[in-house]
């Protein structure tokens, strides 16, 4: 403990320290000499390609993949073209960029995944230099060709190549370049001589005049800052938008550095850059002084969010600005609470001792920090080899860390961490198990049965497992039977359907779709079946699945009328066929023909009523057509009722009578009909004749009312006397004869009726009449 500060070096206000992460587990004969090296950020894996230029088929270069602690994960001879650059994607895939512009992708274990090209025009001029970069949009690749043309792909998973414009006045290769992401765009920053190009010609503010050429540059992890190294030995530091200069330091070293990296943590005290030459590195910040370290053998710098990792043939170190909290605790003569607590701890050996005295301090941060530290210690372990700092861990999130562990097939550890951090099962344990299962199905040597059982056993209890994803994986590996077995475990039937269709298990897909209740899914399968099968089989399939059949009928009703008919035919559904023809008869010209078909179908369906009604309809239609021809009256489309009414209105009484008899219209209805029609014509004479023709089946109140309705009280009065006693009061009132109404009501001694008449009396009514009514009411009530 006492020596914590021994390796601290002051630089301006801040301290820097270099601490050893691992003694590397690998055994490299020549260290990193003549190696292409790529180390992924966030303590990611390291790839080495030894002697990449070697082309003889007898001695191929070896590609090796290690964890950060140097534990071998893969190794294989490189058989493809000359590799210019290695790099890692955000998902821990290895990118190998060849000089012909082809990019090959391998997974963590050296399995080839796929390849893509950075463009045809690369071919002849060849890739001179390439860079792999990360942005919010994923992993990108940038190359520069022998013809000094730049090509850029921002996201290799959604490949869109952008060929950048030529750098004006550029003779030969640019001195150096870097990729930066600004305003949601990836740009290349090119230096030629002392000039910098983005798209516009620009030069950094306040660059020392002695410099005649920028020989090296680097962009910070966050793309916010840029550092330039000039042939005069000056290091310029500023913002990446070139608007602001932060500092400039003279290093007194004139030869170009081998590598440069920002060494800056979030909320850092000062900007600082690590510059590497053969044999030593330099940390430069705001002040004139620099820190210098000696280097053992060939090394590479790996920029991180909050420092720089340095890897050489034997060791792996972290160089960083000492974090503020560490500084507070360990700085000599520090009186910060943390420092005091540490002292106390030394005396009493109780780390959380002081916490008990803080009443207002919520315990959560303490607990979660302890948890985080335990997790970090676990993944930093030599066997795992992910040397994350706490800052990096917080930035990358648990989710991503779990992913990384899963990529390394460290399933048990991943699950332990999920459980320990109480990650919801859905995002945690279940996800890990799914990956495990996806890996399991690829084990070709084991039988389907065994794998399926093993998977269901392990995943059985876990919630939210997507079995269909695992099944898809199995199917992709050519194990259809296993895939079907696995799908059985999938609780979301909707998820099973697409894969089942892909595997041509369409019948099963259909039942699963129906099970899900999602009708859109059923439709999808049905459409698929329709295209796959011949019509007969298709109909048979539907027949066994009533839900699908009704949905398909719905579809046909709107889209394919003819198919609908075929469907009904196939099912011998004569009732529906009848309805179908009835509908058709309203849409198409051949009305009678369609109706006849409808009658036939209704008969087959033993629907006597419908058959008869439709026959009637045909009869009416024929009658209407005939009359239209003879008399020129437009009748087609009218109901029987309206036809008779029209006939009466135009005085074709005989024809109306004929329809009344032919169609056996009930008397009551016919009387209503005729009465209304005549009243509309105000043919009072005819009405009177009609009333006298025989005893009215509807009584005579309607006669009174309809006359009143047509404002003819005189005619109305003619019928009042013929109204039945029960309706007398109503009839008298209708024609406005209050006295008559009163007489009728009193005669019938009906309480309700007397009240009705009374309610019609107004102040102007004869007093005697009112009294008479009141008296009658009293007697009626007594009764």
């Amino acid at each position, binding site marked *: 403990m006492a020596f914590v500060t021994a390796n601290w070096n002051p630089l301006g206000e801040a301290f820097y320290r270099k601490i050893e992460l691992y003694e590397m587990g690998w055994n490299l004969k020549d260290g990193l000499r003549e190696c292409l090296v790529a180390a992924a950020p966030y303590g990611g894996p390291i790839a080495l390609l030894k002697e990449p230029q070697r082309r003889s088929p007898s001695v191929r270069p070896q590609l090796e993949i290690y964890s950060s602690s140097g534990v071998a994960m893969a190794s294989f001879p490189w058989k493809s073209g000359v590799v210019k650059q290695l790099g890692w994607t955000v998902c821990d895939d290895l990118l190998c960029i060849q000089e012909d512009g082809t990019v090959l992708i391998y997974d963590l274990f050296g399995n080839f995944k796929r390849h893509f090209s950075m463009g045809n025009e690369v071919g002849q001029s060849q890739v001179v230099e390439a860079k792999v970069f990360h942005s919010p949009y994923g992993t990108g690749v940038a190359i520069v060709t022998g013809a000094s043309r730049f090509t850029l792909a921002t996201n290799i998973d959604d490949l869109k190549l952008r060929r950048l414009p030529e750098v004006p006045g550029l003779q030969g290769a640019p001195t150096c370049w870097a990729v930066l992401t600004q305003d949601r765009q990836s740009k290349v920053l090119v230096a030629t001589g002392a000039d910098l190009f983005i798209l516009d010609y620009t030069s950094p503010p306040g660059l020392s005049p002695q410099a005649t050429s920028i020989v090296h540059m680097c962009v910070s992890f966050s793309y916010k800052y840029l550092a330039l190294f000039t042939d005069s030995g000056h290091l310029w530091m500023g913002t990446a938008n070139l608007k602001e200069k932060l500092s400039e330091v003279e290093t007194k070293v004139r030869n170009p550095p081998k590598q440069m990296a920002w060494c800056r943590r979030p909320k850092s005290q000062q900007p600082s850059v690590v510059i590497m030459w053969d044999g030593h590195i330099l940390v430069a910040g705001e002040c004139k002084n620099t820190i210098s370290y000696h280097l053992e053998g060939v090394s590479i710098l790996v920029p991180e969010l909050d420092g720089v990792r340095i890897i050489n043939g034997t060791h792996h170190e972290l160089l960083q600005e000492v974090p503020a909290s560490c500084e507070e605790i360990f700085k000599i003569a520090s009186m910060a609470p943390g420092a005091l607590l540490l002292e106390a701890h030394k005396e009493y050996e109780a780390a959380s001792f002081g916490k008990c005295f803080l009443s207002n301090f919520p315990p959560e941060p303490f607990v979660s920090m302890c948890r985080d530290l335990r997790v970090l210690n676990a993944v930093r372990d030599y066997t795992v080899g992910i040397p994350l700092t706490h800052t990096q861990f917080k930035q990358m999130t648990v989710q991503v860390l779990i992913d990384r562990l899963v990529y390394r097939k460290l399933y048990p550890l991943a699950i332990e961490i999920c459980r320990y951090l109480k990650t*919801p099962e859905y995002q945690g344990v279940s996800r890990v198990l799914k990956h495990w299962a996806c890996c399991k199905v690829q084990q070709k040597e084991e039988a389907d049965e065994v794998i399926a059982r093993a998977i269901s056993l392990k995943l059985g209890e876990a919630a*939210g497992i997507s079995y269909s994803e695992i099944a898809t994986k199995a199917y992709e590996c050519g194990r259809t039977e296993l895939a079907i077995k696995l799908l059985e475990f999938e609780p979301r039937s909707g998820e099973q359907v697409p894969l089942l269709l892909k595997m041509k298990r369409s019948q099963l897909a259909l039942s699963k779709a129906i099970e899900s209740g999602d009708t859109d899914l059923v*439709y*999808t399968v049905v459409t698929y079946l329709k295209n796959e099968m011949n019509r007969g089989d298709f109909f048979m399939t539907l027949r066994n699945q009533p839900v699908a059949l009704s949905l398909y*009928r719905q579809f046909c009703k709107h889209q394919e009328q003819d198919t609908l008919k075929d469907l009904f035919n196939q099912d011998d559904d004569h009732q529906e066929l009848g309805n179908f023809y009835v509908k058709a008869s309203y849409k198409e010209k051949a009305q009678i023909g369609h109706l006849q078909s409808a009658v036939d179908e209704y008969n087959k369906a033993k629907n006597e009523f419908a058959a008869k*009604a439709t026959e009637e*309809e045909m009869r009416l239609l024929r009658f209407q057509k005939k009359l239209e021809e003879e008399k020129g009256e437009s009748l087609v489309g009218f*109901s029987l009722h309206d036809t008779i009414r029209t006939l009466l209105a135009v005085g074709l009484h005989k024809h109306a009578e004929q329809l009344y008899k032919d169609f056996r219209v009930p008397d009551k209805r016919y009387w*209503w009909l005729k009465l209304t029609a005549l009243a509309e014509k105000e043919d009072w004479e005819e009405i009177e004749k009609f009333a006298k023709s025989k005893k009215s089946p509807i009584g005579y109140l309607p006669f009174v009312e309809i006359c009143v309705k047509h404002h003819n009280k005189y005619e109305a009065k003619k019928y009042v006397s013929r109204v039945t006693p029960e309706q007398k009061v109503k009839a008298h009132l209708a024609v406005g004869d209050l006295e008559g109404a009163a007489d009728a009501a009193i005669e019938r001694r009906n309480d309700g009726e007397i009240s009705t008449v009374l309610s019609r009396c107004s102040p102007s009514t004869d007093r005697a009449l009112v009294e008479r009514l009141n008296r009658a009411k009293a007697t009626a009530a007594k009764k």
Partner: protein
Amino acid sequence: MAAHLSYGRVNLNILREAARKELREFLDKCAGSKAIVWDEYLTGPFGLIAQYSLLKEHEVEKMFTLKGGRVPPADVKNIIFFVRPRLELMDIIAENLQPPREFHILFVPRRSLLCEQRLKEQGVLNSFTNIDEYILDLIPYDGDLLSMESESAFRECYLENDQTSLYHTAKGLMTLQALYGTIPQIFGKGECARHVANMMLRMKREFAGSQNQILPVFDTLLLLDRNVDLLTPLATQLTYEGLIDEIYGITNGYVKLPPEKFAQKKPGEGGKDLPTEPKKLQLNSAEELYAEIRDKNFNAVGAALSKKAKIISAAFEERHNAKTVGEIKQFVSQLPHMQAARNSLANHTSIAELIKDITTSEVFFDNLTVEQEFMTGVDTDKVNTYIEDCISRKDPLIKILRLVCMQSVCNNGLKQKVLDHYKREILQTYGYEHILTLNNLEKVGLLKPQTTTRNNYPTIRKTLKLWMEDANEQNPNDISYVYSGYAPLSVRLTQLLARPGWRSIEEVLKMLPGPHFEERQQLPTGLHKKRQQGENRTTLVFFLGGVTYAEIAALRFLSQMEDGGTEYVIATTKLINGTSWIKSLMDRPEPF
């Protein structure tokens, strides 16, 4: 803005806010100025979620109605189609596309593979930058009311065997549970209810592990098939709101009224400029007076209005008592509220007058008399002369159909002879094409020939006390006040479920169609509710296939009963009345 949604037992504003948030997120996905092309059907339901102002805040500059041809010119970067997933709409969209603009589709309530396939066949699928779904299943309609506003749900489920709307129902209930916690108890009656419950339980299994940790707000969910109670919607509703709906029709919370009664009377102008546009009013519990009278029997509305009038004029009289500056200031500060109350009173007095003209008419009275005869079981087995007379007079067909169906339901089917007579009368009078409609009504069970089994409606009526002779319209003591005597079967079932439980009516339940069931959903430990002494239970009643305003009124009455013990939140596929319901089942609908 929608404060009335949060007044109830369950704060439904949470649901509305969630829907609004999702809408905003989608709009922001399409950066820049935009125009929305609407599937006309959606504008009403969307109005309940967001006004134009919200859209405007997110750079929506123009709105069009989706129709054939090209989108009208608009100087915007994005064109967004808000559509239901229907194939015919996809074809129209394909016609509408005209670069160079960015196109987007928002499917409501769910995206559809079938539609995307169609767009692909039309060769336009790749023209869209975003294809998204806006999950709008249950729309908060009022403080205690959710509706899916799905017009044809009943027709699809019971006539066409298309259960799409039930899938949406189940999904909607899952969304609801995500916001308000898992509902521990599910009861149901009917085939569709069973189907929805099955889907819910399945979906719960599917989402296992991702379930939320929210203390459940609802204690019970009751799923009811509309076809368990076919009678209630056929009867004329007699509550204030019910009558407004019966007579003028309420759509998406708005009613359009004849303008004459609402003319502003200005001295000296005479009656010259009568407004011709219908008066459009929003009806919900945000309006204090409306909340007070909406569920009353119409016969009790007059008294309530005049009482209110007295209170308001008394409040205005207060100004004479205001002597000090402070008092005057206080009076003035209350003015806006008082004026709003006075406007509201004026509006509802006018509406009540309009309705009164109709309810006091002979036609209305005769119709109601026949309805009540049927409901009490008088002469339901014979041809009814009133119906015959109505046909003879060629009264509106839907009125006839409502009555005939009601007779059939109250008689557990009609004698073949009677049924055929009615059918024949209808076909001859209104046209033979209605054979299709009659066929539909038979398929859903609204009309049916009597089979040998005896009429069990009287048993159901007696056991469930569906007819109460002494219904008190002014100060009700039973739900039967909403139909002046008839207690809606659906609500009676709900009431009996709460107390004493369905076990007491097993026999009757068996007479009603479909299975009845009970399911329990496991709650995560620690989420079991500890009920306070005297705290009411909350039940969500879901009507599959529609609910009437009178039924809602009856449930609200139960919620307010002092010793009721249960408060109800109501959800449905669509708010219906007899007319709109029958209309949805017709094959060649005619204007009512």
